[in-house]
């Protein structure tokens, strides 16, 4: 038997959606190949990206479709030989080296289902420190880091955890929101597929900090591969004593259950998610009481997004100060931005806050995929404002985005070229709200339906000025009167479209009354 060569082929939804499994089967059949199914590095435009380890350096080739495998093998890629799709050493790919990898520093690098690989790259060192230091020190470190909720709301994580820690009651819970429903976002998915143990570690630290012994992960059903990988990660962690009773011989015990969502967007709202976790329809709850005091089954509950929780182990391991050294003002640390839609180099880019939207779209994304001029960008999912080209120099910063009437949300950036019709997009925002509204409050349930009708009348040129005023009024009612962000923020894409792209709302024959 000759010398074994290690070859990596991602087992990650984007790569698999473009043929990575077929590529993996073909490569695994070669002699002397040790195949590792890693996560994706995040350069989705290069997927499926195959890597081969030559003298300790990983050489990347991509995108490799199943049809390319034969030519790859013929050119002796196992020795790192030249090929039209050879990208060079992975650690020299500009898209990757220009990032600030904190939460994603293991993603792509390691076998996601290897405890050894995880610990070799710093895994569980945050938890070990947390076990030694205790709850007070964990909260201090978190406060120093300035970490804010990455699900979209940006609420300071330390304050949330402290509230739960100080709440009275024997039973407390950690509920991880993995219901990543915003279009243009996939960082939760990539993290859970590429480094699931880091989420488990983050939840353990949260449990330790607030005194919870039980966690739930609420994962959307649209992510079947993520589910499979995360279930495998949970049983791996259990087998190696990182979940269950007396973790690593300590007196700390913690268990995690995985629950599947069922195709409802609004269940990404934290209180609707709690209802769904209790087996009910995802109707949102009134706040107060805050979930931190009365959350899952009425008990004090930490509700955090995947990326928030997975950022915590690094903060404990390397220190909150180190994390806070990234990013300006009150937007501390890094965010895993996601470039999506009509973009040439789509994928995940983890950067410190503060770079501009234009840098992300042009320097990383390379502009539109179609090659046509960019017209609009939607940041922060279906409830985020449409941003015109003129505002692209806005820094990625929670407060700076608020100043232009937009939000960073979960970091999704959807790019549209000049073929987009913004009245159609505004109509869709209302239509989506009508489809996905939980129905509990009237402004959202009825307002969204009326919104579609009013936009139709504007575009059809019926009482145009009066209907534009009515749309504004309706949007105000939804913003002020809705119980949650679904109805409360649907007006943002609508009103930004009207404001920045008014000509799209003229009827096709251009007549104006």
């Amino acid at each position, binding site marked *: 038997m000759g010398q074994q060569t290690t070859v990596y082929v991602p087992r990650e939804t984007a790569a698999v*959606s473009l043929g990575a499994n077929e590529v993996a089967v073909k490569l695994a059949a070669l002699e002397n190949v040790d195949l590792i199914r890693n996560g994706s590095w995040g350069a989705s435009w290069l997927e499926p990206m195959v890597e081969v380890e030559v003298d300790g350096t990983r050489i990347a080739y991509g995108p490799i479709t199943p049809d390319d495998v034969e030519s790859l093998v013929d050119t002796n890629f196992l020795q790192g030989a030249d090929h039209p799709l050879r990208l060079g050493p992975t650690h020299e790919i500009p898209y990757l080296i220009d990032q600030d990898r904190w939460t994603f520093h293991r993603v792509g690098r390691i076998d996601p289902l290897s405890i050894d690989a995880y610990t070799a790259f710093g895994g569980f060192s945050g938890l070990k420190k947390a076990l030694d230091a205790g709850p007070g020190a964990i909260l201090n470190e978190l406060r120093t880091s300035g970490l804010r909720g990455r699900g979209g709301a940006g609420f300071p994580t330390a304050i949330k955890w402290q509230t739960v820690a100080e709440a009275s009651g024997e039973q407390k819970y950690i509920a991880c929101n993995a219901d990543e429903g915003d279009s243009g976002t996939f960082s939760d998915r990539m993290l859970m597929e590429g480094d699931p143990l880091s989420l488990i570690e983050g939840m353990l630290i949260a449990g330790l900090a607030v005194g919870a012994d039980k966690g739930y992960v609420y994962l959307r059903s*649209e992510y079947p591969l993520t589910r499979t990988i995360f279930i495998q990660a949970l049983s791996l962690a259990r087998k190696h004593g990182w979940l269950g009773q007396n973790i690593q011989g300590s007196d700390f015990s913690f268990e995690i259950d995985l*629950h599947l*969502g069922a195709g409802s967007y609004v269940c990404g709202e934290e209180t609707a998610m709690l209802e769904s976790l209790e087996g009910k329809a995802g109707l949102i709850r009134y706040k107060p009481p805050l979930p931190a005091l009365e959350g899952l089954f009425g008990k004090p509950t930490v509700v955090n997004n995947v990326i928030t929780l997975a950022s915590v182990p690094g903060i404990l391991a390397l220190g909150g100060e180190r994390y806070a050294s990234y990013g300006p003002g009150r937007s501390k640390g890094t965010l895993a931005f996601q470039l999506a839609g009509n973009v040439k180099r*789509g994928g995940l880019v983890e950067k410190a806050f503060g770079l501009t939207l234009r840098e992300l779209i042009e320097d990383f994304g390379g502009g539109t995929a179609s090659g046509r001029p960019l017209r609009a960008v939607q940041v922060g999912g279906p409830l985020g404002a449409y941003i015109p080209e003129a505002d692209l120099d806005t820094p990625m910063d929670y407060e700076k985005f608020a100043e232009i009437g937009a939000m960073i949300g979960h970091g999704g950036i959807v790019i549209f070229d000049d073929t*987009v019709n913004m009245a159609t997009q505004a109509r869709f925002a209302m239509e989506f709200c009508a489809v996905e509204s939980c129905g509990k409050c009237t402004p959202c349930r009825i307002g969204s339906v009326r919104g579609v009708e009013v936009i139709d009348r504007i575009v059809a040129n019926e009482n145009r000025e009066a209907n534009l005023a009515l749309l504004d009024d309706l949007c105000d009612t939804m913003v002020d009167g809705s119980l949650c962000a679904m109805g409360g923020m649907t007006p943002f894409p609508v009103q930004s479209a009207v404001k920045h792209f008014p000509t799209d709302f003229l009827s096709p024959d251009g007549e104006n009354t």
Partner: protein
Amino acid sequence: MAIRYDATIASEIINNFDTKPEMLVQILHAFVARYAFISDEAIRQIADELNLSRADVHGVVSFYHDFRTTQPGKRIIKICQAEACQAMGSRDLTEHAKKSLGINLNETTRDGETTLEAIYCLGNCACSPAVMIDDAVYGRVDKRRFDSLTATAGAK
């Protein structure tokens, strides 16, 4: 072929979740995994065994897109309708799919082979448009790729 409803197996499924009402959403998923849809019989039995009213169970079933109440086709094709896919032509793709299958969204071909549904985001937004056939996600699906996938992929 539809799988015939079996009360004993249904009971086992519910038992797998310790017959807990808070597991209702997960129980319904397990029913869909087995029977492809939630039948009236299923609602009745789940309500009985969890000690809930049928209205309670129906309310949960009708709330979630995943819990269809009619027998779907042998394979289910879902086309993403969300913004990132719109930016890459999913509206055109959806029209193409409707025309080539001869059905609208949420309909099943007359031969019972294929159900076409909308889905809002598969998290494959850097490789849009995205399509899901049964449990498999496909990226960068243009009309030609759609035609070749529908000829080969899924239960057909």
